[in-house]
């Protein structure tokens, strides 16, 4: 079975570790993990993952800026924002910029896998 290729972007190593653990032995494979928005853009260009899980609040280049740059490389990129911030403004900004979905932290393994499987119905 071909796995969905996932790239995770979060300044938190703990979150990257958790997501990698949650996706282990699933139909998803983490092909790249970055803790910095600018690096993530370069890595996206090289890896072209099926799904990008992108944190919103990061030092340096923000999640929205990173999203814009990824979409400039590939307007069809499937980018999902994963953030603890769930304000209407933040969700609206991300979705209008081009994010396909929004997941608020924290989440459990089951809810996360379910969310990812739902994504594959539209990705």
């Amino acid at each position: 079975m071909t796995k969905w290729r996932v790239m995770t972007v979060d300044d938190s190593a703990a979150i990257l570790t958790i997501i990698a653990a949650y996706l282990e032995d699933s139909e998803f494979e983490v092909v790249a993990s970055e803790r910095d928005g600018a690096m993530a853009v370069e890595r996206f260009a090289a890896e072209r993952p099926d799904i990008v899980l992108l944190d919103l609040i990061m030092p340096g280049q923000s999640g929205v800026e990173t999203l814009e740059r990824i979409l400039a490389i590939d307007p069809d990129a499937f980018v999902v924002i994963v953030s603890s911030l769930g304000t209407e403004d933040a969700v609206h900004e991300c979705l209008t910029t081009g994010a396909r979905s929004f997941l608020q932290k924290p989440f459990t393994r089951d809810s996360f896998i379910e969310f990812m499987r739902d994504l594959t119905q539209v990705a």
Partner: protein
Amino acid sequence: MGSMFFGQYLLSKGVITREALLEAIERQRQTNLSLVELAVRRGHIDSDQAEMILASYRTTEADLEDLFFDIGGLNPEKVDELRRVQRSDWVKIGAALISAGHLTRDEVEENLAVFQEEQREADQQLEADFRACKDPKTMKSVVELAIFHLKRFTDRPIKLQALSVGGGELGPGLRRYAQKLQGDRVLYVALDLPAEISSLVAQRFVGFAVDDGSEVQIDAVCECVNIIGGHACTQLEARGFKLRPEPPFSTIGNEPVDEASSSVRASVIAGDASADVRVFV
């Protein structure tokens, strides 16, 4: 006297020793079962379901009742029945001290009456202290949100003990995990935690033991603060504030004291450790 648990009150008054309190707490731990443990013991759920319920309870805002139903298939009546059993079997700290031979029933009752009266006064004082804060509604909601998440991240009973306004210097032996929330106004939410609580939070968060002071530990606790800060922004949006969190940070210095005029310090007790929740305004 600040708000505290009865065992700590007895200790602070010199009625019992620290060893006696620890022994009584150990007796409670052996006897008193959580609802999840009780449900396993009675065969309503298996250990895998118990782990899933606990993991969800720690990391989401779901009600325990909903998790029992969604994961274990237990209806609300069954959960109520478990609660009744739990209440009837529950050994309070006073009873544990009596059974361990550290206090007589009369001593417990006499001290409990004084304790309860002092607690009423302490709770009133806390309410008054919140009202005296600049923007008390915001302070109270952020502090309560932080305590709510700390309880989930540690699985410990956590109680707000005292509230004070001050300069915000970090206490000895603590590490600060903080996040700036910026927009219509600027405030910082911070957890000043001892190593013991930092380790516990990080371990529960990532799911495995981490070294004290390690990058993963610091990062995991920062992420917990990030969750508190993000949810605070979401909650305050309902009250008309537009705030966005900046990346959380950790320090053993006094930041953000230089930038902030003052802080509200909410001292909390978590089992036999203590920590501070601070809101800088």
